[in-house]
């Protein structure tokens, strides 16, 4: 007869670390992909006509108006039913990246638009080509301006990555859920998890606000 309940012990460190690593991995993947896609879509939206904007906006709107948890379940089920089973990491990465993109694209769009038309014109009047204006002027200035908002979205992605547990990805929160079932010690484990998120998120968000304040001056 195997024992069902065993307290958390040092031998679980590896298991917890796997959870931590998985949370970190999927967050990084989503932030990187979400940022790249967001950049592209944000630029497209800043530059394109009203019609394109409404179409793009509609798609992004769905991503922002349906709870992430439902998107995850729906997507992983749907793609499975379609005959392309994905493991939770891949399915989770895709949805989390798209979800991130939806928010990032707004961030970058406002960044591109924050570079004043006159400044773009100044650049053009120096003989720079359209591409040079984007590369040397709008990107660097726009990206700087939106850094705090970007960081804000990135941090919320780290937090939202906890939801990928619902499709079976063994990230930190699901790992700890498992340990809780096994040990019946929720408080200790949850506090540990909370501290982990806090020490990642707090310094970064403080830094973001610091930068924001500095830029406001």
């Amino acid at each position, binding site marked *: 007869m195997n024992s069902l309940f065993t307290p958390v012990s040092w031998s679980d460190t590896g298991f917890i670390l796997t959870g931590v690593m998985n949370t970190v991995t999927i967050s990084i993947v989503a932030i990187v992909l979400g940022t790249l896609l967001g950049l592209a879509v944000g630029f497209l939206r800043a530059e394109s006509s009203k019609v394109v904007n409404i179409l793009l906006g509609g798609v992004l709107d*769905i991503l922002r*108006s*349906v*709870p*992430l*948890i*439902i*998107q995850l*379940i*729906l997507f992983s*089920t*749907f793609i499975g*039913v*379609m*005959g392309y089973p994905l493991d939770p990491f891949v399915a989770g990465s895709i949805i989390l990246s798209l979800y991130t993109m939806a928010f990032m694209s707004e961030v970058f769009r406002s960044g591109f638009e924050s570079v004043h038309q006159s400044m773009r014109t100044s650049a053009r009047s120096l003989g720079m080509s359209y591409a040079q204006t984007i590369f040397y002027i709008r990107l660097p200035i726009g990206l700087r301006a939106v850094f705090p908002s970007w960081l804000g979205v990135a*941090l919320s992605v780290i*937090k*939202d990555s*906890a*939801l990928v*547990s*619902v499709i079976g990805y063994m990230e930190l*929160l699901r790992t700890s*859920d498992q340990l*809780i079932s096994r040990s019946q*010690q*929720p*408080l200790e484990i*949850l*506090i540990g*998890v*909370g501290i982990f*998120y*806090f020490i990642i*998120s*707090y310094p970064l*968000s403080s830094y973001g606000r610091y930068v924001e304040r500095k830029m406001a001056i």
Partner: protein
Amino acid sequence: MDYEFHWNVVFQNMPELLNGAFVTLHVSVLAMLLGIVIAILLAIAKMNNSKPYCYIATTWVEIARNTPALFQIYMAYFGLGALGIHLSPYVAVLSALIFINAGYLTETFRGGFQSIPSTQYSASKSLGMTSIQVYRYIILPQMLRRIYHPMTNQFVWSILMSSLGILVGMGELSGTTQRLQSLSFRTLEFFMVAAVMYFIITKLVLFSSSLLSRKLFKGEI
């Protein structure tokens, strides 16, 4: 594709889904209202610089902003449970949402307040208004406009995040969907309908909020 959609089972269960949607809506409304009340207190505490209150407010805000909502909900449910404090799933989700809303709204309120140029205060003062009058007629009405939009967003966020009720067996829209689909194994159909319902709810909220703002706020700032 090796899957036939069976929609009739979903429609049979529509009343239950709608009931879930109703729970979703009222847990978010309650979380918003109570969150606002607490956030006002926290924002005042933060701006007053009186040490102990400011410290409590800051701690609240930072924890709320820097840990996942899912964590807050587990904490309210099982974390507090370990201490012998038993919240029902509804109350656990509600209190987690209140906690987070209050944390985020505190910063919204503070920012909104600080965004009113101090010259508005001087100008009002120079007309002989008392401080209370300045707040009542000049500062607060302008502040309300500025925080209205972020507040609407926070409300939408609450609606979406209440879907985490699924994880503590709460009977809101997601929880209900989860239960119904596991009885018939019609996962896709049920969750698609739930997604559409969430979409409609958030759009309705945004739409009525913009109607209301047009009624409330005449001039632009």
